[in-house]
């Protein structure tokens, strides 16, 4: 037999002035199951709460209805009150007779009648409430960072700083990402390597950080606090532990014609190589496509030369499994392919380069040792023309509809650096808009124009063609209303950036949502920008949207803060109002899993007794309490009615409907 206590709050005069609270208490007392019905001036006050506590003890109440302000205000308060008196906190229902009654109605009779109906409805629901307990799940105190660019490095360092273990999984042979390829960085023009490589070294030396390069995520299972991740450590044919990075092997390797990825393919490297001088780990790797020994068994010079016997031509991919509490996705970006933009002649002319290629051409560690020469004849270019928005803001289907955000600034940087170092060079920039929001950004861009005399032309380039050994850049000058043709020696394209293609696969594995441009979706665009809607998955850097280095670093640190907040907990308290599947009704049709935004539903084959000694194996849904957030999408999708939501069950809601509709 249920024993329900009803507590009607006056809220001073907030409720009592429009609702006859005494009458409400009186009428509700007559409801079946109600054993006590009280009214009090301020139910949320200490005295009011004491009233509830005492009533629970005195009458052995099985449930409490508080007619008061919005549950969004004090539901938590009254739940605690009841819990302290030994009643399950989920045996409390609130009838909102302030915001949804006394404050919006003037007629006392009308408001009182409505308050009574709302009270009845709460009682009807409460009668079907069941005590709920929030499940708990342990948190594995280790984080996984996918991607070893500046975003991943910063997140990993911050997490490690807080004392948690972090693994960085990077698909290329070294960490550092795109930033390692840059020459200088805006708006302060410090050298990228000078600020990045110390961080890379920190990662390598930090005992909390384990770096796995040349590795890929194979599969992700589990949920927040308890991810099980398989990592494929691809064969690099060099024992990472033995190799000292002396580079002797690179000298001896006879197969030297591999394209140097690190230098954007602008020069070549041997089959065994260390990506760049400051690579972390500073370990060689063999390109099996190029290695003579691996390809046709003839050579083996590097192994002969290696003092520490690190070379292993028979090395195989290895799959390791680790557990993590949180996963940071920091997969970064790549410039888009320019195959759709024949008008700029990227594939026809050697001296049409992308901005990232220009970075390498200007970098002291680059293919021309920092001396800016054009790729075709290694001569110094005298006229350089930059074209912005190549593939950005393009809704024609050839490029990307969004603004890549970083190009305006790096183009200004390039223009400025060139004019600084080679003052006799003429620099033109074709732009649609120059977008420079950010601290000291517009000042930076203006410096390029005012101090360095870079020629900014408002307008787009229509085509690039060759004439008398010059690259003729034909475009609009919209301000002068002219069509201009600029004979140039070097043309630099600010290619749009796009998320690293690997992110699609990773998003699927971790059930994180992804937008039409392959950027990962944040849990809330404004208020939860570094979290994925999937609990335990965090977003760091450009995988979430275009951003420059300062923004990436701040987001990476914000992301780390969220990870630390999660890992600092020993146990995760789960939402108590979760979905659950009635296995006797479930047909295993998978409809519920299709609508679950959290991937909380999985299926198992379970054996059921049919009676008469017979059994039957059926596929049924199970909900992971730790992952379910309780939206209820599955409950409606389920045709058999097997899915129901605790705290908001079908019967409870229909009981409310019944109570409201009873006249």
């Amino acid at each position, binding site marked *: 037999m249920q024993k329900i206590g009803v507590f009607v709050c006056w809220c001073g005069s907030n409720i009592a002035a429009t609702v006859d609270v005494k009458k409400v208490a009186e009428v509700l007392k007559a409801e079946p199951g109600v054993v006590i019905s009280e009214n009090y001036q301020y139910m949320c006050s200490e005295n009011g709460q004491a009233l509830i506590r005492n009533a629970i003890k005195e009458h052995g109440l099985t449930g409490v209805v508080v007619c008061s302000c919005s549950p969004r205000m004090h539901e938590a308060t009254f739940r605690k009150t009841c819990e302290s008196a030994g009643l399950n906190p989920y045996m409390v229902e609130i009838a909102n007779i302030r915001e949804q009654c006394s404050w919006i109605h003037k007629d006392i009779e009308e408001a009182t009648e409505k308050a009574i109906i709302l009270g009845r409805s709460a009682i009807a629901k409460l009668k079907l409430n069941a005590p709920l307990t929030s499940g708990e799940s342990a948190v594995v105190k280790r984080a996984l960072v996918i991607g070893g660019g500046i975003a991943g490095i910063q997140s990993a360092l911050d997490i490690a700083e807080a004392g948690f273990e972090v693994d960085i999984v990077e698909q290329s042979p070294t960490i550092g990402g795109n930033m390692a390829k840059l020459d200088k960085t805006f708006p302060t023009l410090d050298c990228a390597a000078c600020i990045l490589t110390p961080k890379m070294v920190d990662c390598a030396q930090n005992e909390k950080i384990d770096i796995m390069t040349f590795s890929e995520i194979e599969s992700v299972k589990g949920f927040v606090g308890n991810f099980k991740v398989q990592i494929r450590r691809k064969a690099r044919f060099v024992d990472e532990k033995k190799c000292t990075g002396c580079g002797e092997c690179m000298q001896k390797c006879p197969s030297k014609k591999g394209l140097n990825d690190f230098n954007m393919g602008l020069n070549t490297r041997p089959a065994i190589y260390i990506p760049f001088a400051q690579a972390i780990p500073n370990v060689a790797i063999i390109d099996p496509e190029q290695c003579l020994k691996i390809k046709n068994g003839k050579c083996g010079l590097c192994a002969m030369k290696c003092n520490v016997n690190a070379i292993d031509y028979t090395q195989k991919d290895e799959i390791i499994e680790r557990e993590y509490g949180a996963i940071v996705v920091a997969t970064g970006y790549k410039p888009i392919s320019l195959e759709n933009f024949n*008008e700029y002649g990227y594939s026809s002319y050697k001296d049409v380069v992308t901005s990232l290629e220009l970075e390498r051409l200007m970098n002291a560690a680059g293919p021309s040792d920092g001396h800016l020469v054009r790729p075709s004849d290694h001569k110094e270019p005298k006229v350089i023309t930059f074209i912005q*928005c190549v593939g950005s*803001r*393009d*809704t*024609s*289907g*050839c*490029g990307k509809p969004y603004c890549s955000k970083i190009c305006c600034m790096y183009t200004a940087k390039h223009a400025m650096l060139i004019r600084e170092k080679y003052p006799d060079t003429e620099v033109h920039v074709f732009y*649609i*808009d120059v977008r420079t929001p950010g601290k000291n950004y517009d000042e930076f861009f203006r410096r390029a124009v005012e101090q360095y005399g870079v020629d900014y032309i*408002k*307008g*787009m*380039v*229509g*085509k690039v063609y060759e004439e008398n050994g010059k690259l003729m850049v*034909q*475009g*609009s*000058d*919209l301000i002068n*209303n002219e*069509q201009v043709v600029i004979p140039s020696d070097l043309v630099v394209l600010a290619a749009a950036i796009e998320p690293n293609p690997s992110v699609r696969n990773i998003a699927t594995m971790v059930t994180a949502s992804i937008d039409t441009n392959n950027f990962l979706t944040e849990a809330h665009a404004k208020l939860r920008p570094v979290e994925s809607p999937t609990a335990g998955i965090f977003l760091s850097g450009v995988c979430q949207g275009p951003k420059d280095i300062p923004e990436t670093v701040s987001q990476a640190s914000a992301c780390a803060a969220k990870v630390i907040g999660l890992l600092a907990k020993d146990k995760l308290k789960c939402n108590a109002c979760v979905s659950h599947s009635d296995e006797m009704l479930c047909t295993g049709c998978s409809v519920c899993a299709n609508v679950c935004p959290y991937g909380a539903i999985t299926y198992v084959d379970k054996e059921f007794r049919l009676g008469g000694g017979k059994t039957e194996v059926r596929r049924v849904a199970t909900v992971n309490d730790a992952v379910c957030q309780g939206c209820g999408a599955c409950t409606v999708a389920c045709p058999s009615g097997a899915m129901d939501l605790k705290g908001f069950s079908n019967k409870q809601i229909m009981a409310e409907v019944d109570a409201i509709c009873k006249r």
Partner: protein
Amino acid sequence: MEKNEIVRLVKERSGTDARKCMKCGKCSGRCPAYHDMDIKPHQFVSYIEKGEIDKLMQSKSLYTCLSCFACVERCPRGVAPANVIEAVRQEVIRQQGGNKIMAETVPSMIDETIPQQLLVSMFRKLNK
């Protein structure tokens, strides 16, 4: 016909949404007939959006545009300046009433010196 109605018709016939233009000027940057135009391809898009049809209808660009569609091909926003030019040209021709070439007379005009582009352009007009 009222001016606004002409603007509306031209927009409709051109089938292009001038509001999608982000004013980058790539159309004019590519245009091979640019120097023979008083109003440039990008300006056609801008003027039509602003409703300034009179200027466009008097423009000599209507007759210097080659209908090569390079501007349409290159536009990053899917706007079609050439279609706007063509639609304005159509409107001018329609307003001239009978002052146009009849389809039947075309065969007699063909000789090997007429550029194919012109023929294509002519047929396109007469088709409407």
